[in-house]
């Protein structure tokens, strides 16, 4: 180790280069991006649901970033237009995710706007799709003999009901569903938005 100084300098230079390209330049590009017109801030309940989303680890299987048509057929899957930086203005930290074990969720509130559907699906995903590999979240629900006034009862297919009992959503489940329903970026992308132009020179038009 008689050349410690050059090694340290080289390591610092590599780190500085990476920080420059991955942090400083993107920050300069989109750091001051205003929220898209049509995007609204999350309500307190939706923020509680967002915390649930994070703590339950939804982000490990669900992305929140629909891609351009030349990268993936996300539009045809009904997942919405390619997202732009302005779509995430109120997301801190963003929950874009890296894995797509399940479908993209950035527009799930638009394509599945039914609270009842989401409650059933969270309580027992296999009640909806027998092949689903999504974990069920029974601890977000309560099994009662009778629904009290103000309780939200979860609907289940006839063959999956427990005789004489009802499944009621806890506030955590209601908050999570409120957050899921708030995921709706179907307004048009701002014309000036920075978007991923991907491989547009080969894809796109026939």
């Amino acid at each position, binding site marked *: 180790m008689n050349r410690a100084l050059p090694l340290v300098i080289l390591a610092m230079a590599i780190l500085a280069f990476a920080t420059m390209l991955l942090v400083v330049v993107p920050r300069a590009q989109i750091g001051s991006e205003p929220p898209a017109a049509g995007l609204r801030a999350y309500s307190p309940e939706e923020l509680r649901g967002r915390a649930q989303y994070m703590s339950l680890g939804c982000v490990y299987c669900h992305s929140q970033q629909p891609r351009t048509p030349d990268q993936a057929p996300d539009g045809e899957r*009904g997942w919405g237009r390619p997202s732009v930086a302005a779509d995430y203005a109120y997301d801190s930290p963003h929950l874009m995710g890296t894995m797509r074990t399940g479908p993209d969720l950035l527009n799930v509130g638009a394509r599945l706007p039914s609270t009842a559907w989401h409650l059933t699906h969270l309580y027992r995903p296999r009640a909806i799709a027998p092949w689903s590999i999504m974990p069920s979240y029974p601890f977000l629900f309560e099994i009662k003999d009778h629904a009290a006034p103000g309780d939200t009862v979860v609907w289940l297919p006839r063959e999956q009901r427990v005789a004489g009992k009802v499944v009621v959503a806890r506030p955590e489940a209601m908050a999570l569903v409120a957050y899921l329903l708030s995921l709706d970026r179907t307004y048009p992308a701002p014309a000036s938005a920075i978007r991923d132009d991907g491989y547009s020179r080969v894809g796109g038009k026939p």
Partner: protein
Amino acid sequence: MSEHPLADEAFEPYEPRRPVPLPVYWMAIALALWGAVTLWNDSTAQSSGVGQRLAEAGDMTRRHSAAGADLFAQRCATCHQANGAGVAGAVPPLQGSRFLGANPQLVVQILLHGINGPIAVGGDRFDGHMPAFGSVLDDGQIARLVTHLRATWGNGGEVEAAFVKAQRQATRERHASWNGGADLVSLDPAVGPQPAFLSAPPAPSDSVAMALARGGKAGGWACSACHGAAGEGRSGVPRLAGLPADYIAQALLAFSTGTRPSDIMGPIARQLDGPERVGLGRLYATMASASRARPELDGDLARGATLALQGDDRRDVPSCFSCHGPSGFGVAPIVPAIAAQQPAYTAGRLAALGRHGKDDAGAAVMPSVAARLSDADRRAVADYLATLPPSPAIDTDTKDAR
């Protein structure tokens, strides 16, 4: 003292000079060149993407600011003919029509809401459906179109966008089309005597189906929660209003048996029995609602229009309208309306049909056509169909009753 000769104590170990093999240099240089060329090539993606976006924006601007004559050619000439002569016995003429001579309010109202029912023009009786353009043309476009119509076949005079806006505001509560000439006479008596409109009493199953659509079955999920209160659909959720009743009933049956796989519709459809499927079909077939569909897939609208109107012989793709009816309003009993359908659904359904090889009824005509469409074509045609006015709610029973 050992007899062994001593090692040379002055010897310093050294590493023989072994230069890096030349091929390694070549590979490094080749990789660097390859990287540089790739970077150079990809740097044009940004500028071509910008160019493509500008072209799209220009395309949209042209569509929004098209002159009245162009709008007439795009939207009206298919039925009313380029010379406005109409089609005897089917489509009323515009030449010499008293409707165009009347107050401009009348023409604007007809364009906004469409007509459904018998109408007398120039002494001839017509009984068809004029689509409602209120949800697909903006105030400026309707104003330019009406100005063009009145200048060509009416009394002349310009109609301002503000006038159209006021008219739209005045009838914003109206969701159905005008009920034939009888309804239009009340707007302006100058159109002359008009045939009476007879509506059939609502069938008893309608209230049951309505309860199902709004409240779901036994606390289950309601149709309207996703498909909208007026069956207009939303991004990724199909429009149901104006689809043929038998098509809807058949689709529900296909969902319940798994012929048409759907994780969302499957468990819902399995709760429904035969009469409920038929009732829901009738309910949505007779529902009138404005179009909520907008192009959203970056499709090429001109290419979509070509596919819809003419098809593509080279790919052996017939025109959409050859089977789905003029203007894509569907042909009862089982060919669905495709106009004003949500584009993500249309494109996704085309892709699924192409993969699956069978439609709800087990037929292979549409799947074989869908399989020949490229990804860009599916998006183009889906986006084009989203710009069309919605299919008028055709109440077959009302028509039979007349």
